């Protein structure tokens, strides 16, 4: 895939709204990847400072997002294009929530000390990310219809990835047992967490990847590129920083297989049953795609002991493979449901 050059912008009379939407998506991508990297550093207890690299990436992302949202708002106020109203509102409201989450989180730390993964302010942060990333996607899709987007599919892919990462982050927050603190016991019930993970993660993979395929008119390559980008982000921010699980990179790369297979199926047939088959395959792949964090969720109902960083690989491969037969059918069903829901997302962001 080619990158966006200056000539592309000149040729397509790129406007401020498109650039704003692009910046919003890039900003949330930086924020979510920085956040994922930061969670890994916390898990392996790497000593951190406020200006650690993950924090710098995260806050740079917030600044880029705000600049993008301001650009979208300026363009909308100038042109009053009703098609740009929803993306602008989502980007601006999401950015305001993101900006508000910072001081709120600081206040929460002041009142209650060390916090867990799930806290009201962290939830506020992720909701802001989700809202602003949807605004970015809608903005990029609207720019395609106004012919101001020089690289429609590349930018759509760039906008879909942060939505996936933000939604995945929200599910992590609701499923992982990292939220009990001295003041609050926010850890989810282990059984409910397993049920949620088994249903929601396959659904998420399916809805995001099949929407990407739909938005690219089912051309081969875009679904795979989005899936490969997700795999790359997890390897870079979760696996490589943790030397205890770095050895699992070859294993993690097999996640590309169901993604490519789903892409082949969707690009070679328009038949509904085959679309559902692609969704089912993507759903089934969740158990390997959401490694290593998913280990902590399923381990909770096997033992009350936490999984130490050095025991992740052994726990996952020795104990969690027992779950394969149990999660098989729900994962297929959720993947198919994701296929149905993807039509909604694809229609809402369709070029008008």
């Amino acid at each position: 895939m080619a990158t966006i050059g200056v000539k592309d912008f000149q040729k397509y009379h790129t406007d401020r709204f498109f650039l704003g939407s692009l910046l919003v998506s890039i900003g949330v991508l930086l924020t979510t990847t920085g956040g994922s990297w930061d969670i890994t550093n916390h898990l392996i207890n790497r000593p951190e400072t406020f200006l650690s690299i993950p924090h710098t990436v995260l806050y740079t992302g917030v600044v880029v997002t705000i600049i993008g949202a301001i650009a979208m708002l300026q363009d909308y106020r100038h042109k009053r294009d009703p098609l740009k109203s929803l993306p602008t509102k989502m980007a601006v409201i999401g950015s305001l929530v993101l900006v508000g989450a910072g001081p709120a989180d600081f206040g929460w730390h002041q009142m209650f000390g060390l916090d867990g993964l799930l806290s009201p302010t962290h939830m506020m942060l992720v909701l802001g990310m989700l809202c602003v990333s949807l605004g970015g996607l809608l903005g990029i899709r609207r720019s395609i219809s106004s012919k101001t987007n020089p690289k429609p599919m590349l930018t759509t892919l760039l906008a879909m990835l942060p939505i996936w990462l933000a939604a995945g982050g929200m599910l992590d927050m609701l499923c992982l047992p990292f939220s009990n603190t001295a003041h609050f016991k926010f850890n989810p019930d282990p059984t409910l967490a397993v049920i949620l993970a088994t249903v929601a993660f396959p659904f998420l993979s399916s809805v995001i990847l099949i929407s990407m395929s739909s938005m690219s008119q089912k051309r081969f390559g875009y679904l795979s590129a989005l899936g490969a980008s997700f795999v790359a982000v997890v390897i870079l921010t979760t696996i490589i920083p943790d030397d205890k699980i770095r050895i699992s990179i070859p294993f993690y790369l097999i996640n590309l297989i169901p993604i490519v297979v789903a892409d082949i199926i969707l690009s070679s047939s328009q038949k509904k049953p085959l679309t559902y088959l692609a969704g089912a395959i993507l759903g089934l792949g969740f158990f390997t795609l959401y490694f290593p964090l998913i280990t902590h969720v399923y381990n909770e109902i096997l033992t009350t002991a936490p999984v130490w960083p050095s025991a992740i690989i052994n726990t996952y491969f020795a104990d969690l493979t027992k779950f394969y037969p149990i999660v098989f059918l729900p994962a297929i069903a959720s993947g198919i449901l994701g296929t149905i829901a993807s039509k909604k997302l694809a229609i809402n962001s369709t070029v008008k």
Partner: protein
Amino acid sequence: MMADLKSFGSKKRVAIVTCIVILLAIYFASASYFFPQFYLSLVQQYPRPVISDVKISNSTIHLGQSFEITVVGVNKGVTSDMQTLSVSFPNMTSIQAISVMDSNFTQHPVIIDIDQEVGSHYQGTQYPVYSQYPAVESYNRPWEGGASHEISIDVTPESAGKFLVFVKSVVLPHSDTIHYPMNGTKDQQSEYVVPYSVNVVNP
């Protein structure tokens, strides 16, 4: 011509289906058999806690005087998720006369008072017990392989006689099999310790 096209389409379909079946077979075989077998067959390497040095400023002191104990711990194996270095004082009845003078651990040492809940039997807080005498627990999380850390504690004994000091180091996880020392005297947490003593005489 149409027959050729149909035949080509049919061949293409067969090729795609074959390709999909092979790819999925590779995926499921890798995820459920090959990689689990591979990763579980790797030889596990473990951390190895050792207390490499214990320095006591005075072997004999007068009652009312203090002495300083410096304990150096090292991990001679691979990096551990967590390693503790504990110094406890069976003859003390309160933490008032215990103070940490120096420490190069990444976490602040914790001074444990009497009747505080602590882990035992190398199972951490899964088997909690209540402390009967004061202790100072310092730890690193993680503790790099080959790295050493030390702590210096100033103590003023409360009575004359043989004043005992227990020293131990434990790694987590695998604490039930990997700890220092491996045998000998047990402390209030039913874990092995190396005993040291200072002679406290009346002035």
